[in-house]
């Protein structure tokens, strides 16, 4: 299958610190790629490099064969690659519907069409009953869902989810897992950063492990669990 995203030797330096160094991997159409690693491994930095928030210091990012280096986040979104934020960013003084409409307006100039598109996505994350509530007043679980609905409304081909289950209780996490699997059924490729190992093993087709900015391992979930380097990175080595 064709690669939708190719990351080639991407490095990102902040001063002398290498937040990412020489990371490479490919993603094929329709897959879910899990991105894991200990805190500070450079997962979010990699997201930022891919979506245009930082230009990579070295290396290239290709999306559908197009070089993405140097493109602004709004261009990246228009091209069909959209991300959510680890720390949710609701547009607090706007209603849930208006939040999602802002996403939908990326693809249309008509408020009416945007409203229809937004209601559809709000239905997907099951927030219909909160459509007229202010986004700033939602509890964390619903904010995470709002984040997903808003980003889905931009009609992405590739969705990058940054810890959408962080801070959620098991029931809420389960809902998000189902949501991610639903999104996969609709043919949207996803890259998911997650700390919940059980969840990531369940949903991912492949997993990339980052450690100290470098790619430590890549493979399907079973390979990753049985990889001694990964176990060492998470639990430390035996003495």
């Amino acid at each position, binding site marked *: 299958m064709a690669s939708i995203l190719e990351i080639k030797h991407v490095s990102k330096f902040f001063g002398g610190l290498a937040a990412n160094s020489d990371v490479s991997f490919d993603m094929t159409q329709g897959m879910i790629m899990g991105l894991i690693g200990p805190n500070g491994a450079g997962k979010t930095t990699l997201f930022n490099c891919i979506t245009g928030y930082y230009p990579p210091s070295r290396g290239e990012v290709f999306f559908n064969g197009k070089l993405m280096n140097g493109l602004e986040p709004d261009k990246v979104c228009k091209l069909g690659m959209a991300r959510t934020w680890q720390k949710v960013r609701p547009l607090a003084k706007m209603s849930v519907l208006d939040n999602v409409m*802002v996403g939908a307006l990326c693809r249309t100039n008509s408020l009416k069409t945007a409203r229809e598109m937004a209601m559809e996505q709000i239905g997907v994350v099951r927030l219909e009953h909160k459509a*007229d509530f202010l986004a700033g007043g939602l509890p964390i679980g619903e904010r995470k869902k709002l984040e997903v609905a808003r980003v889905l409304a931009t009609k992405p081909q590739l969705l990058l989810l940054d810890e959408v289950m962080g801070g959620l209780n098991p029931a809420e996490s389960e809902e998000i897992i189902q949501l991610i699997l639903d999104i996969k059924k609709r043919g949207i490729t996803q890259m998911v950063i997650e700390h919940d190992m059980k969840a990531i093993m369940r949903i991912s087709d492949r997993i990339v492990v980052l450690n100290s900015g470098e790619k430590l391992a890549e493979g399907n979930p079973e390979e990753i669990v049985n990889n001694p380097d990964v176990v060492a990175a998470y639990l430390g080595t035996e003495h």
Partner: protein
Amino acid sequence: MRMTFVNTKDQRGSSPVKIVLFLAIVALLFLFPTFVESTYALHIMILIFISIIMGSSWNILGGYTGQYSVGHAAYFGVGAYATMMLMQFKQIPPWYGMWVGMAAALVVALVIGSICFRLRGPYFVLASIAVAEIFRVSALNLKEITNGAEGILATEIPPLKFGETVVTDFLSKVPFYYTGLVGVLVIIAVTWLVQHSKLGYYFQAIREDQDAAHSLGINLNVFKNTALAISAIFTSLAGSLYAVYVGFIDPTTVLALDLSVQIVLICIIGGIGTILGPMIGAVVLVPLSEALRSNIIAEGLISSGLVREDSGLGSFLKENLAHAHVLIYGILVVVVILFMPDGVLGFFKKMAARKGKG
């Protein structure tokens, strides 16, 4: 949480009651000069109209888009100077001059915007102040072009003719009243259109979270500059109107930091990010400042019998209170901001919400 009482339904459709009320007020305002002959009342109304136009213009950038410019005097001054210079030095009537002013303000806005919008938050505020100061100092020193500190005095406004018939000769305040009123209706319409379009959604998204907006496909530069352009054009219109109405401008009145702050205050006092806010702000602030200036408080205290005129306190107040009008004005503004952080409009909405619950 303070944000919960903001009525989000306002953005979708207006109720028939509101529309009827709005039309009734507009009709009343159009008839106002026919039954009120007091020139002072008309004067106050014209000042209110000018304040509404400049407040609402700022509101599009500050209130909707969240970019707090404290340098809007620059655009006000550009409008005022363009109109007055063309009228006095080139004999071009102001109803052409104001368009030149608006075009000039647009160009200035795009230049300033493309530079200053790289900055966020307090840094943008400081940059906007600095830019306005550049304009003030330039107007002060380019004596050959602007008359410098002497300012420009309008000697005569040419009569507005339609064919051969004279529409108005601008001898009374009435033509200024109607010009101001039409200006207000235009800025209300513009704000309404912005609020009910993609622009309004994008502006508010930028206000709430720039990074989130950016990631949702919003080109920050384009939309911030659009907001500034709309804002600057109509601030310039207010400047033109003010210049021709007052008949005299100099750098310390139309390009001063005071004025920039005044523009912001109109919105903050009224309530930012709403159509009604700047109108309420202007209706509160203009009469307040006029009343303080004209010594109405001292006279009121004396005539109501609270303070005797021949007492020491009475004569002290009568002589000095008017001089302290800026001080009192300042204190009142601080009090309003402390106790009504969402402006007068927000305050009453909160009250209404409480009443509804209790």
